[in-house]
């Protein structure tokens, strides 16, 4: 394995969340009844003409700036010709010679340090409709999605493993979410990914032919497909043969890729200048306006968190790994006015919960305000840490506020030394054996006694105070 190097390039399609479709005034929305969100333009009726959507270009430029690309000076569109039932005009309006954004890169964090994955280009194009294959031998077509604006992000083959691919995609997805130009939901198809892969035998200096794996619809599939292909390509090299240049499909059930078509049969797209769209100049001022209006990006935010909140790099990168999480954390910190406390709670309790339930933050029953209320109890010592954790669990389950739960169950921490003294006396009286054990040097006995105190106070005893008082009382005995 040592001498093999895997080269992976990704092509990622991202649907832009513009108000309208790319070339007509139909709304850009998901989930309408079939063929009810279409007009002559996006249906490709004879005679209908496209006119470019400004917001779509703005969003694409924003993505280009976020990924450090050079922005083209003029918008020139091309027709990419192929026949397919979900394509209304027999060509897709896309870009060939003059992609809107050129070059650029995205940095991923590896154990050995950061790595730049270079981009080839980002271009804009329109989405197609959707096909549904029914069981009774028909194909049904819905064109509501036809004409939704997309950006296609093409990387250079700088990715060398499935793990790097996953890290790249996560970073990309996160950055786009920060920008707010797409909801990047793979399950709704607003982010789709193709993989180009081949393997080099570095010693013998031979390389396999590139295979393209189309339409992967989860990061998991991307990882599995790369791993499967990597193996297939290496086996070919070891057998002294080679892979064919071809397009393949990933089967999620078997975890294997299957041949779709040989590349030499692949369609010749016959790119042609789209003369229906007069080129539009992109002025420097416009780019600057877009740059100014751009939201903070993950890397910037990470650096700011380290500086403003005195977080270490690890914590800062965890807290900025998704836009929602970073916003949640910031709002929480503002409310409780304790960056460290907020970070601890978000990173342990909130993130654990998300992981356990495999959920997004937005699906969780928790606002920063609600959590802040709970943390105020912790900060002021009215509720102890363990109780607070239990309260949070209940908040997530019932949606009730911290105050309600604490009030209803009387969970305010007992700091009152008189009350604690009474409980501790009772515990000492009822557990003489343990007291003796502790005196004889068995430290574990102290834990048992503390447990009894907590039991009697339903966990409300201030653990520090109770612990101190218990030891004092035993020693005085």
């Amino acid at each position, binding site marked *: 394995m040592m001498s093999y190097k895997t080269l992976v390039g990704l092509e990622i399609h991202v649907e832009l969340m513009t*108000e*309208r479709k790319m*070339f*007509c*005034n*139909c*709304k850009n929305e998901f989930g309408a*009844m*079939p*063929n*009810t*969100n*279409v*007009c*002559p*333009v996006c*249906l490709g009726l004879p005679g209908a003409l496209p*006119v*470019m*959507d*400004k917001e779509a*270009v703005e969003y694409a430029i924003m993505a280009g700036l976020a990924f450090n690309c050079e922005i083209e000076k003029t*918008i*020139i569109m091309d027709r990419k010709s192929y*026949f397919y*039932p979900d394509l209304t005009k027999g060509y897709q309006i896309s870009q060939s010679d003059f992609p809107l954004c050129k070059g650029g890169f995205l940095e991923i964090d590896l154990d050995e340090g950061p790595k730049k994955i270079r981009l080839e280009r980002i271009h804009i194009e329109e989405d197609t409709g959707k096909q*549904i*294959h*029914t069981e009774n*031998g*028909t*194909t*049904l*077509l*819905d*064109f509501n999605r036809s004409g939704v604006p997309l950006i296609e992000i093409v990387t250079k083959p700088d990715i060398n493993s499935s793990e790097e691919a996953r890290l790249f995609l996560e970073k990309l997805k996160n950055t786009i979410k920060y920008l707010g130009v797409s909801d990047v939901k793979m399950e709704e198809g607003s982010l789709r990914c193709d993989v180009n892969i081949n393997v080099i035998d570095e010693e013998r200096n031979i390389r396999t032919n590139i295979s393209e794996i189309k339409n992967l619809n989860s990061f998991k599939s991307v990882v599995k497909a790369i791993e499967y292909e990597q193996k297939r390509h290496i086996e070919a090299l070891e057998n002294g043969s080679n892979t064919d240049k071809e397009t393949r499909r990933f089967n999620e059930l078997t975890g294997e890729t299957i041949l*779709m*078509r040989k590349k030499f049969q692949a*369609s*010749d797209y*016959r790119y042609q*200048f789209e*003369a229906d*769209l*007069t*080129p*539009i*100049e992109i002025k420097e001022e416009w780019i600057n306006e877009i740059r100014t209006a751009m939201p903070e990006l993950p890397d910037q935010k990470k650096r700011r968190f380290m500086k403003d909140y005195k977080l270490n790099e690890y914590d800062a990168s965890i807290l900025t790994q998704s836009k929602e999480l970073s916003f949640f954390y910031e709002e929480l910190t503002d409310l409780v006015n304790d960056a460290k406390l907020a970070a601890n709670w978000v990173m342990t309790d909130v993130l654990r919960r998300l992981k356990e339930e495999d959920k997004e933050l937005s699906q969780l029953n928790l606002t920063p305000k609600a959590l802040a209320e709970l943390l105020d109890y912790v900060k002021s010592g009215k509720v102890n840490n363990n109780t607070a954790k239990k309260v949070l669990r209940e908040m997530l389950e019932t949606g009730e506020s911290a105050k309600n739960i604490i009030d209803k169950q009387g969970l305010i921490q007992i700091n009152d030394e008189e009350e604690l003294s009474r409980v501790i006396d009772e515990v000492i009286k009822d557990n003489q054996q343990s007291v003796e054990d502790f005196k004889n040097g068995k430290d574990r006995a102290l834990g048992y006694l503390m447990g009894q105190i907590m039991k009697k106070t339903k966990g409300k005893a201030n653990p520090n105070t109770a612990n101190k008082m218990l030891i004092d009382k035993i020693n005085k005995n």
Partner: protein
Amino acid sequence: MISKEEVKNIAEIAKLKFGEDELEAFTEKFSLVLDFVHNINKVDTEGIEPCYGISEENGFFKELEEEQTLDREEVLKNTTESEYGYFKILKVVE
């Protein structure tokens, strides 16, 4: 000159079909036209920009206006077959 095979291949890309006889005649006519077109090879176009639209004006963006969405009845009016609001063709999975 262009061969019959090449013409066949172009027909495949253009999704058209010609009978053998037609193909023969077609290849002949095609060759004539190609000879004629090749005349442009004489022109030196070194350093000349392709014409991306004849207009000297800058292009413009779409004006935001009410959507021109069609009623579904209108959408499906001109198709041969439809079902449940979808266009319908026989299953043609590759």
